[in-house]
C-alpha cells in the first residue's frame, strides 16, 4: 500500500522541467533528486516527503526521452504518479524502472494538492483519504503487468534470457 500527500500539476509536464537538461551529465539518482521539478515548482523539494504522490492531468512526462526524469522522481521519494494520460516514452521508462503510474480521470479531477491519497497497486485502487473517495485506475495489460511483477525490465529480461524466450 502506498500512501502520501499529493503534489498536483496541470497538463503537459515535460521531462525538461522534471529534471532540467543542465544536470544530465549526472546519472546518480540521489544527485538528480536534488534538482527534481526545480524549474516548475521551486518549493517542491522543501515540501516533498517519502511516499508522496504526484497527480497531473494529461500528457505527463512529454518531451525528451531522459530516464533521469522518472529516476529523479523515484529518488526524491515519489511513490507513484497518477494522471489522466502519460507521454509514451515516460510511461515506458517509469514501468521499466519500477515507478508505478496510474491512469484515472476521476481520481485526477477529485484530488487537490495536499490531499492524502492511498494506492493499492494490486487492485488498482486509489483512495483519497482527505475526501473519502475511492477510484479505480485502468488496469495494466498482462504483458506490462509481467514486467512490473518481475521488478522492472532488467529483471524481466534476465528471466527471458535464462528461460530461452529470446
Amino acid at each position, binding site marked *: 500500500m502506498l500512501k502520501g500527500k499529493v503534489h498536483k500539476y496541470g497538463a*503537459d509536464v515535460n521531462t525538461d522541467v522534471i529534471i532540467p537538461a543542465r544536470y544530465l551529465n549526472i546519472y546518480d539518482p540521489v544527485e538528480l533528486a536534488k534538482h527534481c521539478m526545480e524549474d516548475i515548482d521551486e518549493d517542491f523539494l522543501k515540501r516533498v516527503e517519502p511516499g508522496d504522490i504526484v497527480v497531473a492531468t494529461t500528457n505527463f512526462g512529454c*518531451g525528451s526521452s531522459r530516464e533521469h526524469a522518472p529516476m529523479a522522481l523515484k529518488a526524491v521519494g515519489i511513490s507513484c504518479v497518477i494522471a489522466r494520460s502519460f*507521454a509514451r516514452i515516460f510511461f515506458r521508462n517509469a514501468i521499466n524502472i519500477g515507478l508505478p503510474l496510474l491512469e484515472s480521470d476521476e481520481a485526477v479531477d477529485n484530488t487537490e494538492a495536499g490531499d492524502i491519497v492511498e494506492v493499492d497497486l494490486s487492485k488498482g485502487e486509489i483512495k483519497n483519504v482527505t475526501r473519502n473517495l475511492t477510484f479505480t485506475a485502468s488496469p495494466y495489460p498482462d504483458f506490462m503487468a509481467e514486467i512490473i511483477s518481475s521488478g522492472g525490465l532488467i529483471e524481466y529480461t534476465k528471466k527471458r534470457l535464462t528461460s530461452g524466450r529470446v
Partner: protein
Amino acid sequence: MNLAEKILAAHTGRKRVSAGEFVNAKVDIVLGNDITAPIAIKEFQKIGVSRVFDPRKIVMVLDHFMPTRDIASAEIGKMMREFCREQDSVFFEIGKAGIEHVLLPEQGIVLPGQVVIGGDSHTCTYGAVGAFGTGVGSTDMAAAMATGDLWMKVPPTVKFVYHGNLGRWVSGKDLILHTIGDIGVDGALYSAMEFTGEAIDALPMDGRFTMANMAIEAGGKAGLFRVDNRTQLYIKSKAKGPYNVYEPDPDAEYARVIEYDVTGLEPQVAFPHSPANVRPVSQAGGVEINQTIIGSCTNGRHDDLRIAAQILKGKKVHPNVRCIIIPGSQQVYADALKEGFIEIFIEAGAAVSTPTCGPCFGGHTGVLASGERCISTTNRNFVGRMGHPKSEVYLANPAVAAASTVTGRITHPDEIVK
C-alpha cells in the same frame, strides 16, 4: 496494413499485426548518446550477458554535452568509448561525427524498412527514409542491446494529407509546426503519424527529416513517410547494404485522417512555452530577440544552411543579436564550407560552431540568461529548455530565424530578400 503495421509485422515474423497488439519487435539499430548511454551501459551490465546481441547494430554518438563541456561529460565520453571498444560496436568520435539524427541517415546506417530504437526522443526522425524509428529510455536500450528486440504496442496510425503547394520560405518545419498547432502536443499520443499528399511528394528530403523529427512534439511514436524516388535517390549513394521498402496497403486502416490545404500557408512560429503555441509569422508582432540558433537534429542539414546563407548573404547580424549557426554533421559542415555558406555566415557576424546539440537543450554553446529571447530552428521551447527558466525560445524555420537575425525582431523573410 498501414506503414507502421507493415514494418512491425516484418520485424515480428508475422504475416499481420494490428494496432493495439503487444509484440516483441526485432531491432535493426540500437542508438545511444552521451545522455542516455551511460545509464544504458550500467543497466546492460546488470543483465548478466557479456556481449551485445550484434555489435554492428549498436551505435553510439557523442553529441549532447560534446565536445566535452566539463569533467563529468568527459568521464561519460570515456565510458562510452571504452564500452564500444570492448564490444566492438559502432562509435562516432568527435571530428568524424555530428548530431546523431543528422549523422545516421547521412552515413547510410539507417535505411528504409528498419526498426530503429534510440535513447533519444527524436529517433522518430528516421521515418523520413521510411524506417520505423522511435525514442526509448536507457533501460529499454539496455534490454535491446542484450536481446536484439524490444516490447512494443503496435500504434494506431493517424494519416496526414497535405494538399496544395508550398510557397516561398515555407518548409517542412512550417508543415509540422502548423500540424502540432492544430492537433496539440498530445494530438498524436501513442500513435504513428503517416505524412502524405502532393505537398509531401514535392518536399525535399531535408524537409521530410524536419517533419519526422518533430512527430514526438505531438506525442507521436513515429513519423513515417513512404519511400519514393526522392528517398531512393538519397539512399542509393549511401546504403551499405540491402534494405526493404514497405508500402501501406490501399485498404489500410487509420485511426484518423487529417487533411490540410497548405497553399498560402505562411512560415510558422511557435511561441513560448509549447511547440503547439503556433502563429503565422505575420502575427508574431515583431518580438525582439537576443539570440538566434540555426542548427539541431531538426534543422541542421544542408538545405537549412543554404536557406540561411541565401538570407544572410551581404547582410549583418543585428547589433542586439548574437547568431550561432551549427552544421549538423562534419559532412554538412564540409559541404557548407565548399559552397561558401560558412564565409557568408562569418562575414555577417555569426558564430559557427562544430556540430553539437549544445544550445537546443540548454547544455552549452548558446545558453540563455534570465529574460532573454531566442529564435531557434530547434524543436522544443519548454520552460528553461535553452537556459534560465525565465528565458524564452521561439521556434521557426531557418529562413525566419535568419531574417530575424538581421532585424533583431521576428521577421518575415520577404522583408529581407525581395
